[in-house]
C-alpha cells in the first residue's frame, strides 16, 4: 500500500481540484452596461448588470466613476439600486472631452463595501459632436478614484468574456501541461532505450506516448468547447492549441510507424529514434507560433495565453495541484499499459520455450 501513495495523491489532487475549483465563488464583476454608446453634452442613465454582486446589500456605500485614463474620471451624479444584480447610474457627460479623438472609450468603475471595486474596460463609448481638447480641459470636472474597497474572502478573478469558465484553467489548461510532462517522460525513456536497449524502456515510451495522446485529444476537445462558447469559434490560434495539434499528428505518426515495422527489436529502436527526433523538432514551435499570430492571422491578437496577469494567487493554489493531479493519473494509466506489455512479452517468451 505504501508504494501506491502517489496514486492516492493523484486522485486526491484531482478531487481537490474539482471541489475547490468549483466551490470558490467568482469575485463580483460587471457583465453588461446599456447604453454603451453615448454623446457629449447629455445627462445619461446607464443600466449596469452585475455578476455575483450585492448592490442591494451595500446600497449606501456604492460609488461609481467613468474613467478616461489613470488620472481623469467623472463621478456618477446619482445612483439608484434595483436589486443585487442591477443598478442604474446617472452621469453628466460634458460638452467637450479633453481628448482629440472623435470617439473615446471609458472604463466603468463601481465600488461598494460588500463587493469591493469592479470595473469594465471600454464600457462606454463617448462620441463627441466637435473636437476641442482645450475646451474639454476647461469643462472637465475631475473626480478622484480613491479609498477603493477590497473584497473579503477567497475568490477567483472575474473576467468579462470568461465568466465562470475561468475555472476551465484547472480542467483544460492543466491537461496541456500534464501532456507536455508525459511526453517528456516518453522522450526520456526513448533516450534510455538507445543507451541500453532493454524492452522495458520501449514499453514505457509507448505507454507514456499513448497517455500523452489521450491528454492531447482531451485538451483539444475541451479547448474547442471552451473557445466556441467564449470567443465564438472552435479554433483560436493559441500557442497551446497549435502545439497540441502538431504533437497529436506527430505521435499518431509514431504509432503508424510502429505498426508498419515487424521485427520487435527494430521496431523499438526506430520508434525511439523517431520519438527523440520528433520531440526535439517540436520544440521550436513554441517560438515560431507567437511570431506568426500578428502577421498571418490578424485579429488573433489578445488570445488566451495565460500570462502571469491572468493567474492570481488563489488560482495558482488550484492550478498547480491540478497539473500534478492530472499528471499522476496519467502516469498511473501509463503504468497499467506497460505492465500489460510486460505480461504480454512473458506469454510469448513462454511460447518460444515450448
Amino acid at each position, binding site marked *: 500500500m505504501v508504494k501506491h501513495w502517489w496514486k492516492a495523491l493523484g486522485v486526491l489532487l484531482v478531487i481537490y481540484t474539482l471541489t475547490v475549483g468549483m466551490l470558490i465563488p467568482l469575485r463580483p464583476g460587471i457583465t453588461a452596461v446599456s447604453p454603451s454608446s453615448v454623446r457629449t453634452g447629455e445627462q445619461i442613465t446607464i443600466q449596469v448588470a452585475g455578476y455575483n454582486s450585492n448592490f442591494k446589500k451595500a446600497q449606501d456605500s456604492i460609488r461609481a466613476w467613468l474613467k478616461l485614463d489613470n488620472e481623469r474620471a467623472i463621478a456618477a451624479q446619482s445612483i439608484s439600486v434595483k436589486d443585487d444584480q442591477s443598478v442604474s447610474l446617472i452621469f453628466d457627460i460634458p460638452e467637450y472631452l479633453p481628448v482629440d479623438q472623435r470617439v473615446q472609450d471609458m472604463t466603468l468603475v463601481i465600488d461598494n463595501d460588500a463587493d469591493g471595486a469592479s470595473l469594465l474596460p471600454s464600457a462606454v463609448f463617448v462620441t463627441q459632436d466637435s473636437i476641442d481638447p482645450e475646451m474639454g480641459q476647461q469643462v472637465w470636472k475631475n473626480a478622484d478614484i480613491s479609498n477603493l474597497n477590497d473584497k473579503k474572502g477567497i475568490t477567483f478573478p472575474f473576467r468579462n468574456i470568461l465568466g465562470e469558465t475561468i475555472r476551465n484553467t484547472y480542467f483544460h489548461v492543466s491537461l496541456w501541461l500534464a501532456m507536455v510532462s508525459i511526453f517528456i517522460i516518453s522522450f526520456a525513456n526513448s533516450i534510455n532505450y*538507445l543507451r541500453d536497449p532493454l524492452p522495458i524502456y520501449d514499453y514505457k515510451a509507448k505507454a507514456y506516448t499513448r497517455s500523452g495522446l489521450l491528454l492531447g485529444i482531451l485538451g483539444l476537445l475541451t479547448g474547442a468547447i471552451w473557445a466556441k462558447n467564449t470567443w465564438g469559434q472552435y479554433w483560436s490560434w493559441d500557442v497551446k492549441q497549435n502545439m497540441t495539434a*502538431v504533437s497529436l*499528428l*506527430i505521435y499518431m*505518426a509514431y504509432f*503508424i*510507424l510502429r505498426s*508498419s*515495422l515487424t521485427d520487435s527489436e*527494430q521496431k523499438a*529502436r*526506430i520508434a*525511439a*529514434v*523517431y520519438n*527523440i*527526433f*520528433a520531440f*526535439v*523538432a*517540436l*520544440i*521550436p*514551435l513554441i*517560438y*515560431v*507560433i507567437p*511570431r*506568426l499570430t500578428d*502577421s*498571418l492571422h490578424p485579429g488573433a491578437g489578445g488570445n488566451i495565453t495565460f500570462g502571469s496577469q491572468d493567474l492570481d494567487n488563489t488560482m495558482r493554489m488550484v492550478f498547480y495541484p491540478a497539473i500534478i493531479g492530472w499528471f499522476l493519473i496519467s502516469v498511473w494509466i501509463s503504468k497499467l499499459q506497460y505492465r500489460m506489455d510486460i505480461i504480454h512479452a512473458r506469454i510469448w517468451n513462454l511460447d518460444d520455450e515450448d
Partner: protein
Amino acid sequence: MKSKGEIWHLLRKDFLLEFRTGYAISGIFLYLFGTVYIVSRAFQQIKPESWNALFWIIILFASVNAVTKSFVQESNQRQLYFYSIANPIAIIISKIIYNILLLLALSFLTWGALSFMTIDPILKPDVFSLTLLLGSIGFSINFTFISAIAVKANNNATLMAILSFPLVIPVLLLLVKLTAISIGLVAQDITNDILLLLGIDLLLLAMTLILYPFLWRD
C-alpha cells in the same frame, strides 16, 4: 581528413548515379512543371497571398518526392556495401548535401516557372533567395532523416509523408511568413525570423547526426 574525402566521394557517387540514369530528377521536374501548369490554368488571376500558399505547397510535395528516393534507390546489398566501407555520418551528410542542392535547384526552378506562367509578386528577391536557401536546408535535413526511417518500413511513400509533414511545420510556417515579408504583405524586420530558421536547421542537423548511427546498424 578522412571523412571529408568520404563525403566527397559519396556525393560524387550520387551525382554520377543521377546523371547516368537521370529518370528520378526528370520525373521530379516533370511533376513540378505539370503542377505549375495546372495551377496557372486553374487560377485565372492569382493574388500574392495565394501565390505564397501555392508556391510552398508545390515545393513541399515536390521535395518529399525528390528526397524519398535518396535511400530507396539503393538496393539493400549496395547499402550494406557502403556501410561496410564508409562512416555513417559521412553517408548521411553526403545525402543531406546532395538533397540541399537538389531542393535548391527545385525551389528556384519553381519560382521561375510560377513567375513565368502566373505573376512574380516577389518585391525583395534577396530576402526570398535567403528564405529558399534556409528552407531547402531545413527540408533536406528533415526529409533525408525521415526517409532513412521510412526505408526500414515497407510502405515507405505514404509513411514518408505521414512522418515528415508534422515535423516540417515549424520550418514551413517560418518560410511562409518570410515569403509574406518578401512579397510585401507584412512589413517586419526579418533578422529574428532568419536566426530562428537557422537555429531550427542547426538543431535538426545536430539531431540527425546524433541519431543516424542508431538507424544505420541493421
